[in-house]
């Protein structure tokens, strides 16, 4: 097939620029991949952690069990709430001793406050919702203090957002740079073939036919860059897995999407350039 051969020929004609465009596409997608991976794994971790999210409302000494039961019943009817359970002083002590195992003696004779433990429904465990429910619970006059994993949940959420945004920004800037470099490569290729192109025009080749090999070249570079990025991301993940923490990887659909995006970067970069430069020869 002539177009494929032509694409190969231009690759050989300006290997440095070609390699550079492939590399920048790879870096663009690698940035997406790496930060995407971080975001994905934080997401996974959050899903697991969120199961444990609960709001614990400590009640003041001297609150009657009836008051506590009444409040638990009220709280259980909030739309965000899955369950609200009353925990007596004795139960609190027993739980603390169990959790501490060998150090159970520490609590000998100590008095832990009674509490209402509130669990939220799945999908309602984001920091904003947790905060809202917590402040409602806090409004009960006998609720003394409230605890929830506010700090670390918010931090994780923020981390995930930062990873997402950083990946997006870095990936998009690399995408832009690679489009510019691809544009430059195409410009050189078009100029190198100016005579051939003018003869093609003269004997009646359509613009689409003339453009095709250049576009194909862009797509090919995009896909090669995408594969390179996939390899880099996979290797990074392997390293993280081995030395830091077990992680999950993208599924096949996301990988295909990444390659497609690479092809798109290549196509756009060459389409813009080839349109502009063909008009001049």
């Amino acid at each position, binding site marked *: 097939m002539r177009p494929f051969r032509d694409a190969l020929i231009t690759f050989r004609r300006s290997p440095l620029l070609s390699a550079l465009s492939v590399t920048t596409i790879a870096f663009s997608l690698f940035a997406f991949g790496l930060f995407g991976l971080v975001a994905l794994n934080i997401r996974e971790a959050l899903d697991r952690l969120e199961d444990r999210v609960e709001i614990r409302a400590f009640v003041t000494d001297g609150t009657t069990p009836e008051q506590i039961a009444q409040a638990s019943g009220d709280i259980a009817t909030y739309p965000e709430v899955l369950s609200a359970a009353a925990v007596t002083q004795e139960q609190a002590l027993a739980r603390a001793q169990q959790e501490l195992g060998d150090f159970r003696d520490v609590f000998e004779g100590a008095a832990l406050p009674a509490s209402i433990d509130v669990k939220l429904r799945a999908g309602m465990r984001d920091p904003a919702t947790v905060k809202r429910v917590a402040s409602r619970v806090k409004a009960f006059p006998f609720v003394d203090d409230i605890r929830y994993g506010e700090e670390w949940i918010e931090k994780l959420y923020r981390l995930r957002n930062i990873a997402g945004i950083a990946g997006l920004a870095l990936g998009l800037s690399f995408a832009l740079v690679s489009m510019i470099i691809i544009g430059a490569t195409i410009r050189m290729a078009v100029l190198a073939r100016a005579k051939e192109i003018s*003869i093609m025009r003269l004997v009646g080749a359509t613009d689409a036919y003339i453009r095709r090999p250049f576009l194909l070249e862009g797509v090919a570079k995009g896909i090669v860059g995408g594969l390179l990025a996939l390899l880099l991301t996979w290797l990074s993940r392997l390293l993280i897995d081995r030395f830091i923490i077990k992680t999950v990887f993208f599924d096949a659909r996301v990988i295909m999407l990444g390659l497609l995006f690479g092809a798109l970067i290549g196509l756009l970069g060459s389409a813009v350039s080839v349109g502009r430069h063909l008009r001049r020869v």
Partner: protein
Amino acid sequence: MIRFTHVTKTYPRTGTAVQDVTLHVGKGEFIFLTGPSGAGKSTLLKMVYMEERPTTGEVRVSGTSSVTASSREVAKLRRKLGIVFQDFRLLDNRTAEQNIGFALEVTGAPQSVIGPKVARALTQVGLAAKGTSFPRELSGGEQQRVAIARALVNDPFVLIADEPTGNLDDRATRGIFQLLRDINASGTAVIMATHNLELIRRQEFRTVEMNRGMIVFDSDEQLPPARDA
């Protein structure tokens, strides 16, 4: 077949190159286009194969109008035209055969028809033995024959030649001219721009002379040409 109607071409930087030209070229005609340098001959020919479009007026070639034709239609039109230049415009890294076949390839012709058509065109221009030569291995006259074969390989209804003998010596010039007459005799119209007055003087073909962008003489219509056709 080819009709210019009140065609004016003004280039942005150099001004008017062709002014109010009205001209008709019939089927199978042979026309000499002459006139001093800068008269607008090349510009006129460019408007036939629609590399340039008129600033005002209309050029119609075989049903394609310069006013409405899309770039795709222009490409299709050029497959029915043969175009040759003074500088041959062959690709140095391809043999004569490959240069000729190129014109068929880029229009999507199947490989099976390319071989026979190329062979026929090469024979037509008298170069059957030189098909595998590269342009640098051919004389100027031979290179122009290859260019003419490339122009003929699509069976054009008209051959447009912009000073095809401009780079050739007398002998080669006569050879190319004879070839163009043979091509014309087999039914293809020929429009040939040339400075070679001697060549014209010895012929009885229609002669159109331009000066400063205007047609100042047309042997068919007797001078001066009618302003309206």
